């Protein structure tokens, strides 16, 4: 598989994608919260689509493109979103943020008309125990208006 554009080999096909990312590759941005698909803190992109890496086996990602939160830095929407999250002080403990960034960046990069409702739907698979979502959502909306995607 490719992770953030770099070819990766030597992993166990029966391991969780999450464990390959964190332990085999040492990319610690992706978090494990629940391990059962509820919280979304382990979200990564698999061929551009958000998935919970705790529920994907590494073998299922073979030959495919995986993008983790670290890989978003090199994409314009991801970089802008990071800035806006900081400007809006949208983080408290920060544990959910990598997953939120992955889901929100996927939404920004393929949606023409980003609205509050569309953002809330896009991050509905990501639980945040701290912020109450308001600042998260406005950070995403501001990042969208920077890209011209905000209606």
């Amino acid at each position, binding site marked *: 598989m490719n992770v953030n554009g770099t070819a990766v080999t030597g992993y166990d*096909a*029966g391991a*969780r994608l999450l*464990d390959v990312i964190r332990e085999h590759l040492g990319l610690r941005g992706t978090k494990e919260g629940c*391990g*059962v*698909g509820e919280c*979304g803190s382990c*979200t990564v992109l*698999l061929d551009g*689509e*958000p*998935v*919970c890496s*705790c*529920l*994907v*086996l590494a*073998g*299922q990602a*073979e030959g495919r493109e995986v993008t983790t939160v670290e890989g978003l830095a090199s994409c314009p929407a991801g970089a802008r979103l990071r800035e806006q999250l900081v400007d809006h002080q949208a983080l408290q403990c920060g544990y959910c943020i990598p997953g939120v960034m992955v*889901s929100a960046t996927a939404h920004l990069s393929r949606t023409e008309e980003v609205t509050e409702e569309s953002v809330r739907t*896009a991050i*509905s*698979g990501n639980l945040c125990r701290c912020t109450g979502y308001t600042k998260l959502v406005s950070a995403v909306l501001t990042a969208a208006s920077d890209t011209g995607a905000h209606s």
Partner: protein
Amino acid sequence: MKPPPFHYHDPRTVEDTLHLLSELDDAKVIAGGQSLMPMLNMRLAQPGHLVDINRVDGLAGIGWYEPEQVVRIGAATRQRTIEKDPDLARRYPLLPEAISHIGHFQTRNRGTVGGSLAHLDASAELVAVASAAEATLYAASTRAVRAIPMADFPRGHLTTDLTSDELLVAIDVPLWPDGHGYAFEEFARRHGDFALVAAAVLLELDTTHRSIRRCRVSLVGLGPAPIRLTKAEELLNGGVADDDALRSAAALARNLSAVGDDAAPAEYRLALAETLVRRGLRRALRRATQPTTPEVN
């Protein structure tokens, strides 16, 4: 938690998959993994072998068979694929509407149609749809391929008619005429949670648009298997399509029996059933009267 150790198999053809399932002891199919992986991670399941069907040729896709008037959906077709498919939105909009209630983007991007049916959760949306639709499921093994009517598929809590060496390969959904009415209604504590109760409704008017030619109503969340509300269907079929009729039909849901649990007592589930069936019938009737093209999202 990490899953327990298992042997991972990654076959490319249906034939290889069926051989693995018939030869290996203690093997489990893994499709989208959105129900099985949580069980592995929680160590609620410890199969010796996992047979991954994600790369098996010919198991995913949507095919239209006009002479037979059915749409065939491959077992490994992703839920998100169904949700976004423009032809299904037009010709079988109950399916995408139901799927929009399943989990969230992450789970729908991976979860499959066959996985949901094979898992047979007591309140799974696709189970309600397959029941109302009178779908036929095709199960293959090294012995044979057999067709299972949805009505005969559930065998108990999370238990289906599939044997351990069988692979669900596709389901056939009989088509309804263009412009038919449909509705999927559910009540869940939060959007994306499993439903407490959900209702799937299909409805066709006669040419005068005044009476109902036929309708189907199925409920999940009342017990381990979906329940067809046949009494309501009989009451409505051939009758005048007015609100009184819909209300009386929905009220029949109260006579069903439900299994209560910590999440909701039986009485409450039946009250939900009546309300959801009433809403579903009304919405289906409105849509049959004024057909519009649903949006794909």
